[in-house]
Structures are given as structure tokens and as C-alpha cells.
């Protein structure tokens, strides 16, 4: 296989890590919604935690994406 082709395949594989991040972010917002519907009064106070959790989960997916870009262009 040509090295160039292997690079593209590698970049593609590296970005698969984003799947986990997608599941995590979906889970966080889904759980938040489920909790918020049960107790709407407490929901507003947890929005900060919601975004921090989403950001932390998302960071790992972004890491995979950046790795993919680095392999692609590097």
C-alpha cells in the first residue's frame, strides 16, 4: 500500500474515537432532560454542571479529531 493511502486510512480510523464522545454527550443531555422533566424546579441550577460535563466528554472526541487532522496533514 502506498504511504499516502495509509495516511488517509489512518486519519479516518483515528476519528472513530469521536463515536465515544458523541455517545457521551448524548447521554449527558439525555440524562439531564430526564432528570429535568422529573424535577423542573431543580433543573436551572444544574445547567452549569451540564455544560461542564458535556465539555469534558466532548474534549476527548475533539482530541481524536485533532489527531485525525494531524495524521492527515502531518
Amino acid at each position, binding site marked *: 500500500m502506498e504511504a499516502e493511502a495509509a495516511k488517509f486510512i489512518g486519519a479516518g480510523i483515528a476519528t472513530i474515537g469521536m463515536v465515544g464522545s458523541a455517545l457521551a454527550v448524548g447521554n449527558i443531555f439525555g440524562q439531564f432532560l430526564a432528570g429535568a422533566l422529573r424535577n423542573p424546579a431543580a433543573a436551572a441550577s444544574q445547567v*452549569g454542571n451540564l*455544560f*461542564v460535563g*458535556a*465539555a469534558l466528554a466532548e*474534549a476527548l472526541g*475533539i*482530541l481524536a*479529531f*485533532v489527531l485525525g487532522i494531524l495524521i492527515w496533514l502531518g
Partner: protein
Amino acid sequence: MADPIHQFQITPLPGLDFGEVTLPVIGTVHLAFTNSHLAMTLAFVLVIAFLQVSTSRAQVVPGRLQAAGETMFGMIDNLAQSIIGHDGRKYFPFVFTLFMLVLMMNLLGMFLTFTATSQLAVTATFGVLTFALVVIIGIAKNGLGFFGLFWPTSAPLLLRPVVGLIEFFSFLLRPVTLALRLFGNMLGGHVALKIFAGFIVSLMGVALAGGVGLFALPVAALSLGMVIALTALEFLVAFLQAFVFAVLACIYLNDVVNLGHGH
């Protein structure tokens, strides 16, 4: 199709490339006023102008612009107080400055051809700045007690060194994740926008050839819809990432400000 990465190229503005210049301490550098400089300077000027205009002629019943300025101010003020607590006001200026600058750069990226926060150098500077401030405040406030951050007293004694080591490395990774999150979000969003926009052009080219190519027309329309939806999403992301950056800066500051007497 147009290269989606091309938009992140840093190029000197025409007429403002000064070439190789020898500076006193730093040595020889390539000095130029680039599009990255321009975007950052614009963001800086806009932040100052926005806050200046929104706070001049302040009235008891705020107008539209004043209400916008006060909402931004109040939001970050609330955030700092609720996370850091009593000492929150002391660190508010830093967090607010970070927030406004990052927000304005993100938003400008939606209007200009260049996004300053899609440059790793820019976001890394913000990340390292926050990290350095956290370390400096931690040592200034707690002295050597700062290292208690890596000695979790709530863990069993036997596990403490292991947990502490993990804590230590996750502490060192903070500026990296701070920088990469903002950088990756901006880069990813703008690449996706550019790719879908490129689809429209190339698919319309196919459709205009007529014949079987007409089947490309609905796909081009779909791409156009995607671009519109993604643009809306990008505005949300632009705000959200600035907010997340501010929240995380507050949390990291809280770690060292209220070290030992968590609340």
C-alpha cells in the same frame, strides 16, 4: 472542490509584510501584520467598543444595548460567585476578559474569512495563561500547601499516592484540554461548513450539465439546508465554547482558592 483547510492559512496582509527583522533580544524574526493579527485586533476593539457603548449613558431602565452588556457582565459575575464563592469577585475581571475575548473571536469567525480561535497558538496562549494563573495563585495563597491538591485526603492511605499521581497528570493536562477543546471545536465547525458549502458548488456544476446530472439538484439543495443549519449551530457553539472556557477557568481557580476547605 475548494480545500477546506485553506481558510486557516495565516498570510501577511498585502503591504504589511516587513520581512526578516532583527530585534534586540529575540533575534531575527519574520515580522508581518497577518490576517490572524487583524482578526484578534478587531475582536479586541469590538469588545472595548461594545462595553464602552453599552455602559455609557447608563440608565436605570436599560436600553437594548445596555441590557446586552449587563447580561454578559451579570452572567459571568454570577458564575464566578457560584463556583468560587466568596472570593469570586476578585477573579471576575480575569474570567470576564477571557470570556469576552474568546466570544468575540468566535463570533467574528462567523463573519470574517478567518477565525482567530481556530489557531492552536491562540487557544494555547489562553490555556497556558489560565494554567499559569492557577499555579501562581495556588502557591501564593497556600504556599507549599498547594501540593495538597495532589494528596487527596478523602482516599484510603494506601491508594493516595496512586490517586495523587493521576491527579497530578490530569492537572498537567488541563491547559492542553482547554486549548484543544476550543481549537478543535472551531476548526471542526468551520471545516464542516466549508465542506458542505463546497458540495453545493460542485453539485450545482454537475446539475447544470443537464441530463442525469439533474439528480444532483436535490442533493445540492440538501447541502444548502445543511449549511444554514450548521451556521445556526456554529453561532451556538461559538457562545457555548466561550462559556465553557469561562466555567472551566472558574473551576480551576476554585480548586486552588478554596484549597482544603472545599464547599
